[in-house]
């Protein structure tokens, strides 16, 4: 291994020497085109990120001009705080619950839509509808449907005699989490359907034919041909969606603001609550900084998956 790396390194300058100006010219052009985007990202993301790290070690209050250094105190108070651990748990429940449901529903619907159905294009368009609507509007509609006084879900549940009293969809601590997960799943499952459907279309038909000749049934064909064929797509889609769900603020904030109590308070909403209404900007940032290790891990995995696929393509 080391030998091969060494060999490549020594071979490089030779190649560059032969067409040195061309390579140098190409590199210069490359850096030039990248420059505007790189500068923007550096200024707009890099600087605030460093600022955020700095803030997390200071006692910065909203409206105060000074921000004394307090070392790890923001982190220490968070780790000793049960509300923080509740938010960690909620974040995982929200993420895993959403992703699991989206994956199962998305896979099943993609399998159905991959069959030769009449009017398949129409069904696919309808399935895309939740994805095409602005997230915020979907959340508002669901909030209206969940309304305990005049909401349509309670109306349907009571008239169909599924429930004999009004359900506090967003007000009951044991129902609120499944209720917010349902909204996330409703909005996000079409993404799974479309990407999995694209993955299914790359599985060669010959493999199915061969499996049929070998006497494999529906289930065996799914487990031994379909599933291995779409595994990379499933991995990328799931990780991608997991990262975005893990970071999501608006769905939970608009539906419950983290309540009732802290039943749906996730790390994203906790950050906001501590920083803005709670006025403790430094401590709020610390919550988000604590999310980073897991987030970075997921992004690294996803990046590796995607670059491997790009190399294969």
């Amino acid at each position, binding site marked *: 291994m080391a030998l091969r790396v060494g060999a490549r390194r020594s071979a490089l300058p030779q190649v560059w020497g032969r067409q040195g100006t061309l*390579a140098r010219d*190409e*590199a210069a*052009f*490359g850096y030039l085109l*990248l420059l*505007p*985007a*790189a500068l923007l*990202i550096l200024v*707009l*993301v890099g*600087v*605030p*990120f460093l600022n955020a790290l700095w*803030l997390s070690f200071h006692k910065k209050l909203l409206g105060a001009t000074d921000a004394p250094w307090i070392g790890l105190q923001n982190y220490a108070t968070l780790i000793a705080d049960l509300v923080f651990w509740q938010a960690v748990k909620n974040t995982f429940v929200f993420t895993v619950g959403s992703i699991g449901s989206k994956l199962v529903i998305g896979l*099943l*619907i993609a*399998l159905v839509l991959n*069959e030769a159905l009449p009017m398949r294009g129409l069904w696919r368009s309808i399935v895309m509808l*939740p994805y*095409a*609507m*602005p*997230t*915020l*509007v*979907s959340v*508002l*509609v669901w909030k*209206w449907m969940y*309304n305990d*006084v*005049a909401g*349509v879900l309670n*109306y349907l549940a009571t008239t169909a005699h599924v429930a004999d009293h009004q359900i506090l969809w967003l007000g009951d601590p044991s129902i609120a989490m499944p209720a917010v997960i349902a909204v996330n799943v409703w909005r996000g499952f079409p*993404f*799974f359907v*479309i990407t999995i459907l*694209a993955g299914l279309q790359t599985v060669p038909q010959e493999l199915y034919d061969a499996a049929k000749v070998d006497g494999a*049934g*529906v*289930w065996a064909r799914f487990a031994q041909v379909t599933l291995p064929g779409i595994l990379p797509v499933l991995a*990328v889609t799931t990780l*991608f*969606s997991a990262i*975005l769900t893990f*970071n999501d*603020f608006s769905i939970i904030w*608009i539906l419950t603001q983290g309540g009732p109590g802290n039943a749906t308070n996730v790390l*994203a909403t906790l950050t*906001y609550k501590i*920083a*803005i209404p709670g006025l403790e*900007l430094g401590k709020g*940032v610390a919550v988000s900084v604590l999310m980073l290790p897991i*987030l970075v891990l997921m*992004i690294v995995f996803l*990046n590796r998956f995607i670059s491997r696929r*790009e190399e294969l393509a």
Partner: protein
Amino acid sequence: MSTASVLADRARQASADRWRVRVQRVQHVGFRAFGWLLLAIVLVVALFPPYFMTITAFHPPSLSFSRTPTLFSTDLSLRAFAELFDKYPYLQWMANTALVSVCSTIFSVTVATLAAYSLSRLRYRGRSTLSSAVFFVYLFPSTLLFIPMFIVLNSLHMLNWLPALIAVYLTFSVPFSVWLLKAYFLSIPRELEDAAQVDGATRWQSLALVVLPLAAPGIAVACIYAFTLAWNEYLYAFTLLGDQEKFTLATGLTKLIFGDVFLWGMIMAGGVMMSAPLLILYFVAQRYIVAGLSAGAIKG
């Protein structure tokens, strides 16, 4: 082994085969029926919220003064819309949202096209690291960045200033567009560019006259997504804009939800108008969007 036992064996084998085929046929029909049932349920669930939004907008609760939700009505009115325009600067919010979305889209897609071309086509040191960095920045949580943004813009007296919001939106739309377009450029055959350069075209000429026209569908997808991200954005708009005249649709509409039952007609009317541009965009460009989704993976 005797002939009889061989024959018996074969018969047993044949009957087992038949049995298996029959089981498989039943299984197949069963799976198919289950699949259709599931699809039907999912279609109803996908359609109901947009339908209910529309019926509430055109038959608002204030029309019947009833706490029973209206599931169907032919008595439609534009009263909720009129009331919304009357009581809130809705059109101003829409103009603000359009301004912020269009500006951030144009700016980010332009910058991103150059960067994506560079990252996918030109060879230089550190290219793959820079590529990964862009991806990383795209998935970076806005919950981590909104606090420093708030502090900086506050100290510069730039809260409530839409150009500042446009700049903030570039934090996600630039890396996102770079990433999407990079995948697209990789799918364009390199030979065409080489041919142009052999014919004496400069790098700029081959980029502008050969690559960009071929990348047009990809650029269109990047525009649609960058526009959608900005149109939908909530956290930054919510924290960085405090003045009602400067609200975007996302912040304006959510300010209304803490009212009573009779406001829901107005909120849903606002939702219908906020969804309309995106729904039209999606259904006109559905083919490209599906292609974009499959090429990479977009905001879920």
